[in-house]
């Protein structure tokens, strides 16, 4: 349950942050959520990763659908991902997830007392 709440909260906070702050505000969002909803480091990572991954991938997917895939196909050839928009969406989610995940671990360790 805690995990799901953390996932949703990370996604929400990261979305709001993205409206006003640079892209790396997802790290701040993940960190804050991990501090507020304390979980073990591994779980905190997973929750933040999923939250950020879902947010970035979902937004990318939605934009791509509205765009009828015009730009994603081109960028997925620049990067290079074989021109596959799906891969580009997954990579987008993964990059967001990775940064958020590690930031959440920091948040978790901040509240974990010494074993």
């Amino acid at each position: 349950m805690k995990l799901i709440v953390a996932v949703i909260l990370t996604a929400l906070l990261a979305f709001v942050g993205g409206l006003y702050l640079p892209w790396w505000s997802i790290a701040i969002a993940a960190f804050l959520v991990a501090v507020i909803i304390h979980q073990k480091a591994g779980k905190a990572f997973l929750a933040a990763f999923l939250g950020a991954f879902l947010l970035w991938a979902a937004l990318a997917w939605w934009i791509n659908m509205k765009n009828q895939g015009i730009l994603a196909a081109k960028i997925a050839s620049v990067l290079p991902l074989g021109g596959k928009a799906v891969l580009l969406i997954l990579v987008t989610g993964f990059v967001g997830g990775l940064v958020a995940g590690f930031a959440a671990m920091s948040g978790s360790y901040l509240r974990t007392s010494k074993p």
Partner: protein
Amino acid sequence: MRILPFVVSTVITAGLIFAMDKSWPLGGKRLPPLGKFLSPQQGFWQNAEASDQDFAADLKFSGLKGKVEVYLDERLVPHIFAENDEDLYFTQGYIHARFRLWQMEFQTMVASGRVSEILGNDPKYINFDRETRRMGMVYGAENALKQIEANPITKSGCDAYTAGVNAYIHSLTCANLPVEYKLLDYKPEEWSNLKIALFLKQMSRTLAGFDNDLANTNLKPVFDFRDLMVLNPQVNDSLEPIVPKGTIFDPPGIVPVKPPSADSLYFGKKDSLNIAEVTKPDPDNGSNNWAVAGKKTKSGAPILCNDPHLELTFPSIWYEMQLTSPTVNVYGTSFPGSPNVIIGFNDSVAFGFTNAQRDVKDYYEIKFKDDSRQEYWFNGQWKKIDFCREEKIKVRGGKTILDTVAYTVYGPVIYDKSFSTALSGGKAIACRWVAQDPSNEGLMWFYLDRANNYNDYFSAIKDFSCPGQNMLFAAKSGDIAIWQQAKFPARWYGQGLYVMPGEDSSYMWQGFIPQKENPHVINPERGFIVSANQRPVDSTYPYFIPGNYIATRGITLTKRLSAMEQITPQDMMKLQYDYYNRFASEARPVLLKYIRENDINAEGKKYLDLIKNWDLQADANSKGQTVFTAWWDSLRTEVWKDELEKVSKNKLRPESRTLLEALLKDSSFKYVDNINTPRTETLYDDVTSAFLKALPQLEKDDKAGTLEWAIHKEPTIFHILKTITPFAKTGLKVGGDGEIINAVTKSHGPSWRMIVDLSPLTTAYAVYPGGQSGNPGSRYYDNFVDAWVKGKYFTLWVMRKSDVSDKRVLWTLKLSGK
């Protein structure tokens, strides 16, 4: 708190953010800053424009005096209605930037030699930047800026335009930056009037920056001046000049005098200079335009047609628009980066341009006293240089390069010990170029957009200085006219074909051809005017006017238009799209006459038959065009290679037409013989061996299925940054070639096709290979390309203020003062 794990994860997080917040060089390209770039809220995803994107907006800017409405139609063409000219140009600047900002800025970076600042530390970019500055591009733009700002009309127009561009730049956030900035990770800087001047200088470089002076000098040890005139004849036998043959010219107003020492110090001097330019404009930069008078058209009204041939790029160099204020109502195509409509029409007249191809750039060898480059030998004494320009070239990921350029009486010293040493062997060469002189080209378009008749047109164009253009005009009153207009140096015979001695003022330009003696045609008897980059006049013109002329399209068009009557705009569309290969029609009989068929095997005969049965159409499916091109190219090599091999660098190959006319006149033309063999080759030998040498590649192409012309030449519209291939469009099913009316080569061709029928109610048609949006993520990025490939046109809609509720208006932008 668990300190160690906390520190570790925090360091990893910070490291990831740092690494993915900046761009990294990667194998000659750059990896974009992954985090910033992929973020759906700020990165490239934000450039993925929704297919039902709403472009309407309500905007307030302190720079505006009144209200402006911009109506975007279904092709995203803006129709701007302003209450005064300043607001009009403000809005034009804003709209250009809104749809084309990245290209506008990048083109001016190219023009000012600042490419390394964006693309990075690569000798290729640095040498390009140094040469650009050393030829005086920025110096010339600064000279132009003084003129622009000294004239109240251009001053206020450019100030308003610049304010409009900056209003858009200031409204940008990280999220809505054009995608190229995100890929390369940099930001736009402030726009300025200097950038407008730079953009126009770039046009001069593209269109009036071509000459073969360095290459010709390099040929001297092998070919003397008489040979050079055979390789590069001033007047083709079959020339159809712009000014009809037989026109009587006035006696020259200026008679330049050949220096007494010219035979020994200039023509006869045989030290080979091994200098090659770092970059040279595409010699194919050309164009067609023609106008037919009412007596040859079905409607009885003149028709004006224009298709400028340029490098085909995304975004296109052109942006279509309508500009309306109380002083003007003009429709046509504009240059993002410069105010006004450049090619177009208003309620009374239409105008179009082709390139004059004249040589307006010369070189002088400078003898410096020492390496300080402060004094040079001039008229028998050491003369102090005029001044030094310190060029600071910023390099991304490298140290700023300081480059000191000496300016002499001729102009900047472009090559010297500090630049191109490997090539120039330390020799110092100064460059004299009309584009370095003070001028105000933009003013012409301000007046042209507002012209009502021939007199308005003439007074608009008469002070235009560079690049030399064939300025075509037609009016509803029935007049048609053309002037080849620019500041053209008056040269003595042979002046400037080679690098000249810089030690003696007698080699300087002695003046310019008086404007009224520039080639022109007004309402000719034959009822039409054609310019297609051919030499403008026949041999009776009283000046020596070297240039990079292209004759064939002019011949085709002159013959075609002479034969046409009752012309309609639809006939003109067909003509602009015409694939007939006139050159091949003249060359094929020579090839077929001199081929020894007995030396060709059965397999080879197949290709010979393709030529024999070819309908001379260079259309997309033509195989004959491919075989002809391969054979003819091989013949050119066969004839010239032995002689030109002796010249080490900077090879020059005479024009196709020069060879053809030489062979038609004399089949034992002296260059037919291969000087490397003891026997004397005949034309039979050359033609047959050219065919046999072309054969293996043709067979290979045939097997690979690439013998059809369009597949063979692979027409491609590249993105301005050629390295971003996914932004390009390849495999276009389009025929044509440089000397064919529909002059599409691999990545070059008709960049805007326009036809204006000046009937009482103007009807106009146009198309260009691109789209109105510069954003690769927009459906308007390339949506005109298919029509262009097929030779289709859009009917241009000259909107009236009363048409606001017309269903073609899809979005309205309202701009007003704060």
